[in-house]
């Protein structure tokens, strides 16, 4: 073995699988640098939430107990003095995010599974019929003030009648991939385009600023993501298992519930978490649809801007209680999420 000089040892990798000391050092320096970029802002928010106003205003203090004496006054203010004003949006956020996510995952999984395993042939006429009836429903509610429950029920009944009778005479049809592409492409739609009519719609039926409106909207905007992610998980389940169950006498629903869902559990967990995060952090739709009763946390945090100016100690508390549960959950389940994202992106 020939002697290697100091510089050679520094810059040449010792073997195929190891790195040269110099590049190793540089790699760690950059990665640790970015770690600081990621963690420092969070750290700053956390320590700011324990500062007194004068400690913030007198300039940067970095280390609790050394630079300054931490105090729980901001926490007390947010939780005790404001009390319900904090807890109500927090509860709203939990209810709305969880419910809309559960619904989106259920409905989206059903659709994703069906699009993976069942062949479709949707007649364009059926779709056109639905849109016409929807338009007529809205017009009738608007114009004649018919009660919306009743009108919706009649329209749905008419639609099924149409779909099963005249609908079949229209020739052009959409196949699975068309439907899938259409569902996923809904995500391209900027929410601001859709939210104005949704706002008017909920205003019409008197559901503005309610949990129902928020849940329905969130569920709808997150549905494409669920379908997109779950499709790949379902496609990855060996079809033999389902065929075997089918021969043994299981119905589709039974196969889905007892074979497919348990096997797609990692995917479900990842999708659930991603959608939950999106719903939890959502801002724009909440801005339009909720004003007071159904106000969620992002709105409460954003509203601090106007009401309190730069009272950062309070804001920091709100930010901390908003991101803590999600961050903790994510760290616990990050393996699943990473895999979930990967599956979607690789096959997308």
């Amino acid at each position: 073995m020939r002697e290697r000089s100091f510089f050679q040892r520094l810059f040449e990798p010792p073997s195929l699988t190891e790195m040269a000391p110099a590049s190793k050092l540089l790699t760690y320096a950059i990665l640790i640098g970015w770690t600081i970029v990621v963690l420092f802002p969070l750290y700053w928010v956390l320590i700011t939430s324990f500062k007194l106003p004068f400690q913030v205003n007198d300039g940067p203090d970095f280390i609790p107990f050394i630079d300054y004496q931490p105090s729980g006054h901001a926490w007390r203010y947010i939780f005790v003095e404001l009390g319900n004003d904090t807890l109500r949006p927090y509860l709203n956020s939990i209810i709305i995010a969880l419910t809309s996510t559960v619904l989106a995952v259920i409905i989206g999984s059903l659709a994703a599974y069906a699009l993976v395993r069942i062949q479709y042939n949707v007649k364009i006429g059926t779709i056109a019929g639905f849109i016409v009836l929807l338009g007529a429903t809205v017009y009738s509610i608007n114009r004649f003030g018919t009660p919306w429950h009743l009108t919706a029920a009649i329209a749905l009944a008419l639609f099924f009648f149409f779909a099963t009778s005249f609908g079949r005479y229209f020739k052009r049809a959409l196949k699975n991939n068309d439907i899938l592409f259409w569902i996923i492409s809904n995500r391209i739609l900027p929410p601001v385009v859709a939210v104005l009519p949704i706002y008017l719609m909920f205003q019409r039926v008197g559901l503005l600023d309610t949990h129902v409106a928020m849940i329905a909207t969130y569920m709808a905007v997150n549905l494409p993501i669920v379908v997109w992610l779950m499709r790949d998980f379902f496609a990855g389940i060996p079809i033999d298992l389902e065929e075997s169950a089918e021969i043994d006498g299981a119905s589709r629903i039974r196969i889905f519930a007892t074979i497919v869902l348990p096997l797609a559990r990692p995917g479900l967990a990842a999708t659930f978490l991603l959608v939950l995060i999106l719903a939890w952090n959502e801002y724009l739709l909440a801005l339009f649809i909720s004003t007071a009763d159904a106000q969620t946390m992002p709105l409460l945090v954003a509203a601090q801007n106007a009401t309190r100016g730069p009272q950062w100690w309070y804001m920091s508390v709100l930010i901390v209680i908003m991101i803590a549960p999600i961050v903790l959950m994510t760290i616990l389940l990050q393996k699943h999420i990473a895999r979930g994202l990967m599956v979607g992106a690789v096959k997308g």
Partner: protein
Amino acid sequence: MAPTRTDRIGELDPAPPKFGLAEWIDQQTGKLFVLPAVIILLTFAIFPLLVSAYLSLTKFKLVAGGFDLRYVGLRNFKKLFFGSQQYHLLGTFDAFGPFEWAVFVTVIAAVVFWFWRFFTGGAFNVAGLVGRLISASLLVALTWLILATVFGGYPGSLVVTLFYVFVGVGVQFCIGLGLALLCGQAIRGRNAFRIIFFIPLMVTPVGIAYMFRMLADMQRGPLAYVWQWFGLGEFSWAADPWTARLVVLIGDTWQWVPFMFIVLLAAIENMPRDQLEAAKIDGAGGWQIFRDITWPSIAPVAATIVLIRLIEAFKIIDLPNVLTNGGPGIATESLTLHSFIAWRTQDLGGSAAVGYTLLFVSTITCVSFFNFIGQRTRKTEA
């Protein structure tokens, strides 16, 4: 052919199929599974899209007990593109100098060359031509707009959105890729880095906005001493259009680098090891390995995540609204924020028109990217 069943059932014969409600439901599962999703999307996406199109052509007025919509044709769009709101959407224009002309001519030349390649490439078809014409006209128009407003003029919300989208996604992709490449090497603690780098993705954009407002505070923020040392202690980034935009961009980048990083790292880890080892044995250097092996194998993933980010980046509102309130002036307003502000001032028609502008620009951009860049990476894969 109709099923013909013989009714004679022997002793060993299985029970004949029962046709009841359960059976009917089982037959209909195909429809039942997919219908809820379709109906929800039709109600919450397609139908609003149509209504919005109509709204953008009307003037909205609150009247006693409700509202009134008056059809005004394209007046809302006219106002945005040529009238009193032009400064807001497009910006204030400045005459082209030599630099602007040089860039503009280069872009035109590139587009012409692209068409020439298309015509002589042998894969000519009408749909391709139409698609290319739409993409190219948008590209030329946006180039002109950027050149006319960024250097000298004053950019409107459309140009600012493009800045967030293209500069933001570009920076995020580069940092994410760089970190993923570093982290994909044979190093210890990869999992710890993965978890830590992932965190910003979870943080509420609204929270990020405040966080960066605190961090960017020149007098009381953690970097106050640094600013003072540079003599910038009295400088206010929030009062200067470009520094304000930059702070928004930094916040957005902080949040979205993790997304790029996580997916690219997974793609790098999924790469076939033997190819890498063969290349190393053949004596390929770091750059050659990246260009010839790593990049071709992660390019499809890269194209997909860039597409996802493009789609989402066009929707940006939380950060500029909370971080800078759109200001100074309209300097940091994105299209979505612009639309929201119009809505707040009861200008529903204008709001819908801005929304539709965003829809067109983002859809054409994303579809162009998918067709002309995304698909190409997949071809090299085979």
